[in-house]
């Protein structure tokens, strides 16, 4: 893994660090991000999706309440994609345990990949992931009649027996990079690469961009005093930040136990 740190033929290294900032005070829990993600990434579904334990959703909105009764009750929705943990030097929990090298940390973009043709479905990564961001295909995907023709050719469909997860719409990065190359540029602009959930959010609660680039919106937002990441104490170093002015939300996100010291 040291190789990625060395300079490439054109002298670039660790170019981008893509991440997301989700404003939980703006999120209404409508689920548009989930729908957009399903269609964008050819995520399979079944006729009966009532058993959520075995259903697949790369982006899943989680509902949390402050546990009080009316009129003090407050509800917060957490849209949860893959957190693309960096850990220390790219040692994401899932990447470290995969025996097939079917998932790796891309130092160029900071995105944790999942290669379906390489995965053999041992599900160690699912056990290692503290965010439940990974999903297992218990069945071969079956799309309703004619819907197969509407699948995106940019995202490879999965089969039974492999694990899948959010890729930060990596195919959109590939497309944006192609466009930049064709124009003789090496840099990708902020608006050229945006995830499907970001664009679908009607409340503009999801902001996506390069966390290392001071010109990108996420750079400033992640430094907000209201910004936090889920289960930060585990040292996963995730790249999805959440914003909330409500202190109970921040505490819920950091997930401290009753007697545990918070920060």
């Amino acid at each position, binding site marked *: 893994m040291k190789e990625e740190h060395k300079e490439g033929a054109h002298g670039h290294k660790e170019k981008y660090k893509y991440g997301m900032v989700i404003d939980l005070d703006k999120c209404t829990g409508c689920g548009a991000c989930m729908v957009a993600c399903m269609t964008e990434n050819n995520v399979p579904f079944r006729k009966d999706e009532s058993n959520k334990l075995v259903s697949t959703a790369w982006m899943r909105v989680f509902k949390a309440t402050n546990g009080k009764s009316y009129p003090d009750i407050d509800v917060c929705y957490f849209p949860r994609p893959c957190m693309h943990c960096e850990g220390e030097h790219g040692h994401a929990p899932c990447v470290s345990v995969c025996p097939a090298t079917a998932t790796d*940390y891309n130092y160029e973009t900071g995105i944790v990949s999942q290669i379906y043709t390489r995965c053999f479905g041992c599900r160690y990564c699912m056990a290692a992931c503290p965010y439940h961001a990974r999903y297992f295909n218990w069945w071969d995907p079956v799309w309703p009649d004619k819907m197969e023709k509407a699948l995106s050719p940019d995202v490879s469909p999965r089969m039974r027996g492999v694990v899948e997860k959010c890729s930060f719409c990596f195919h959109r990065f590939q497309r944006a990079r192609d466009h930049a190359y064709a124009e003789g540029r090496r840099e990708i602009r902020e608006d050229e690469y945006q995830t499907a959930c970001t664009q679908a959010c009607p409340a503009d609660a999801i902001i996506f961009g390069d966390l290392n680039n001071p010109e990108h919106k996420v750079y400033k937002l992640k430094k907000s005093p209201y910004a936090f990441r889920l289960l930060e104490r585990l040292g996963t170093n995730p790249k999805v930040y959440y914003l909330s002015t409500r202190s109970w939300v921040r505490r819920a996100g950091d997930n401290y136990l009753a007697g545990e010291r918070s920060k």
Partner: protein
Amino acid sequence: MSAQHEKKESAASSPIVIVFFIIGLAVSLFVGWSIFPKLLYSQKKQPIDFSHSIHLDAVGDCESCHFFREDGSFSGIPELSNCVECHEEAQGEDPEEIKLIENYIEPNKEIPWLVYSRQPDCVFFSHAAHVKMGELECKTCHGMIGESDHVEIYEENRITGYSRNIWGKSIGGFKSNTWDRMKMDDCAECHEEHGTNQACFVCHK
């Protein structure tokens, strides 16, 4: 005493064993190198026997037909509209050209070309990165197709459905030119040489 006996017996039977071994080996190699590839790959003809050399002489470069779109994506195999630009009416009496006009241009039907370099679903290949930024020549991966007079027979793997050009013609897996194969190892080999990013999401999707 008994050890001596055994030794004697094995020495006596060895010529027959060797003969059988050689016959068995020859049969296995024959089956593996000659019969198995024929069974594994079906042979398909392209709809039209296209001559790259004639067209290259006429238009001058690869990019006239295999061009980049404005968004940076690569057009790949030309559409019928590219052909119509010159072949709306027959330019000569070549039977292949007449086939093109009668079967495809007049009924306005796309030509169902068989793509030799079609990669599996999970592969992302960027022509822009290799041709525009990497400044690779077409022939580095595609070989001398531009100089061919006839299209070669398309061999399809009956199990996987992929073209034999991906696996390579050599059944032993030997490779003497960069364009002999299009497997992941071949991509990785060049990426390693040039110090390019080796992460999975560079070539996968």
